[in-house]
């Protein structure tokens, strides 16, 4: 289980994440939602160890991750929000490099890489430089790199970005399958429809604070709202979207 206890982070004195606590259990997909600037990606980066904790604690299987960050990273896979890759490498070279950095056995890693490239329909382009890849292809490379070492904790930050319909369907099923096999999956996305389909539990963040942490079913019942989108709008969207869109249209007409 992944657990965050009173986690906070400030940038130049401004709180980006404020006293956030929640847990993501093995065997289920936890959705992590929030509008832009709500602190989702900052939390994700703290969970991955990319940025330090301001205060609070992050525990994985009951142990603070900072106590043995190396052991923790060996069990974690991460798909970042932006597809930043070394584009001078080919997908094959990139994945081999990741497997070597993760100290996977060469033969086993080779078989996994080959299999992943085939299943993600990248095999024909495996020797082409990533600079020549489309956004969706890059996203597939990121997903493959995150899963290569069979991690126990999978952190997905906007993993569907740029994927075509077919690939998105595969990834959606894959996330559910991985959770069913006992992995802890934390899934951050703006696509509420997808979240509603694959997540059993959601955490909604607004202005750095948790405003909801429950199963989607219970949230629906508690708030007497039929969809996650409406729940989200009620909890985390302050603006009147119709009024704002009208104002923008007026502004460019003026």
């Amino acid at each position, binding site marked *: 289980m992944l657990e965050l206890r009173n986690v906070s982070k400030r940038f130049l004195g401004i709180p980006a994440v404020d006293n956030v606590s929640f847990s993501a259990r093995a065997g289920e997909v936890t959705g992590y939602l929030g509008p832009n600037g709500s602190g989702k990606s900052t939390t994700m980066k703290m969970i*991955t*160890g*990319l940025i330090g904790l301001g205060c609070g604690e992050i525990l994985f299987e009951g142990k603070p991750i900072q106590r043995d*960050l*190396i052991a923790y*990273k*060996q069990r*974690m896979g*991460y798909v*970042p929000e*932006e597809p*930043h*890759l*070394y*584009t*001078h*490498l*080919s997908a094959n*070279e990139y994945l*081999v*490099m*990741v*497997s*070597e*950095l*993760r*100290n*996977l056995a*060469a033969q086993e890693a080779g078989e996994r890489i080959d299999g992943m490239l085939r299943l993600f329909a990248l095999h024909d382009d495996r*020797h*082409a*430089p990533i*600079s*020549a890849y489309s956004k969706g292809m890059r996203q597939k490379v990121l997903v493959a*790199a995150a899963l290569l070492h069979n991690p126990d904790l999978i952190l997905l930050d906007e993993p569907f970005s740029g994927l075509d319909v077919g690939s998105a369907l595969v990834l959606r099923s894959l996330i559910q399958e991985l959770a069913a096999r006992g992995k802890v999956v934390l899934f951050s996305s703006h696509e509420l429809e997808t979240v509603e389909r694959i997540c059993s539990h959601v955490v909604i963040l607004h202005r750095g604070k948790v405003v909801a942490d429950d199963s989607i079913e219970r949230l629906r019942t508690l708030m007497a709202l039929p969809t996650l989108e409406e729940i989200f709008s009620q909890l985390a969207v302050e603006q009147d979207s119709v009024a704002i869109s009208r104002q923008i249209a007026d502004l460019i007409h003026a």
Partner: protein
Amino acid sequence: MREEPIERLQFGVLYRAFLLRVVDLEILSAQGDVVKLLGQFASLLAAISFFFTVPLILVGGRLPQETLWTMEHVLIATTMVVVGLFSVLSWDSIFPDRRDVLVLAPLPVRARTLFLAKLGASLTALSVSVLALNIFTGLVWPFLFSPANGGGFAAIRSLAAYWVTVFAAGAFIFCSGLGVHWLAAQLLPRQQFLRLSAFLQVAAVCLFLSVYFLEPSLETPAALTAPQNQQLLAWLPSYWFLGLFQELNGGGSSSVSMDSAFVPLAMRACTGLAIAVLGSGAAIMLSYFRTLRKIVEEPDILPGSRRMNWSPPLANSLQSAIALFSVRTLLRSRHHRVIFSFYLGIGFAIVLAYMKPALGPHSSPHVAATAPVSVPLLTASILMMCVVVTGMRIVFSMPIALRANWIFRITETRKAPEYLTAIRRTLLWISCFPVWAVFAMLFLAIWPLRFAAGHLVILGLLGIIFTDLSVHGFQKIPFTCSYLPGKGNIQLVFWACVVLLPLTYAAARLEWQALQNLSRYVFVVVILSIAAGWARWRTAASARSAKALNFDEVPPVDILALGLRTDGEMLPEQS
């Protein structure tokens, strides 16, 4: 709104943006100051200018005519080599890159505005370089170059002639370099051109530096007028511009015999300049607009070889990952290749400079390249090792795709010392070993086995020492950490290199003596082994104490905070 003012406005905006991007801002640390970096380079050029003014101060301005001609030639040639290197480094920045095109293409900006802004920014940077390089020399030497008893008018004429000549010489080299580059862009498919471009850049750096260090000294009336030298002079552009300066300065007309030497050279300078400017202009016009489209349509890198799965014989997967990543980055990133080729060019020029006396007529038996052991060759090999290791270490600190380094952070699943060992081995493999191997082939071919093997042992030990000194405190995976300009003192490094050259020659003399005597040789090897052991121990100790790798370079704090609370208690992390 009229079209012309919009274009002018767009030009101004783009010109300012491109001028600051002469240095790739993407590689800089968040705290990096690009102005400071550019200022350091300008001050280095000004220091070179001052260096060339020192002899004048020492002799009090009284110099014979032939020395003045030599100085005229040295100043022109130095300007040409600096501009030549600048043109090589800016080959890529004059063409818009993929990012420029993707950002600007959707905007209503004409290709010609983009092109003129890029060209304008490059020419401004070039002009500032020429100005900085001649800031002292260009204000002092021309007064000595003016014809004797010429008065104030002659001095002003000499000053004007000097500046016209250095800018013309700079323009010639700049346009020639870019012309060749753009012609290649025009004739070849873009991906093949990108590959060839890298080799052209390395070749151009080596050519400029080799010509600068190796061109013969012909600044005497006898040499300039000798019929056997005319063919050589026709191929040496720095002498063309010496002729141009003499003609503009009125120095050539003072003697009919010298006029006959300088006029053809000056004519050749004018013709060469016209051809270079017109040729590069035509090549630009032809290639620029075609290239813009190709930049978006075609990837910058060709697919690698499908069957190449070679991996260096390294101890573990981490070392293999870091070594392969480094090699691939160096081979595929033009930016890094150019910077490394600059150091390689310096090393190559030093080798040639030391080979020059060894290959020519000589009086001393220890100088000849074919002698049992040649001191210049010993010196050249040691300096080449030093330059290549240092150059590679500097290139290692320049990142590629800084935002992609998260993968190394996420996969940092081993302790920092293991990474530092891998980094040291990578540097040994890709800088020290190739230099050692090339010189091994050369020395084993031309020297007796005993001497060749003896020197190769010493060269190997020196390579290990240089490598360990280079990686001491370097807690970064190559090409992954942001670059903080101004950390190294360029001026100090430059003057240290100036001092290092004669010291290395003296050390090579000692080695030459040691190679003739077994007990001395053993003594030298023991001393170097101890030094190598100490350097290794020092690096290993530093690596053991390293807690984490560095991915973002931050400047040292100017003020040391004591971290005292109001009640005088220390903060936990500082107590």
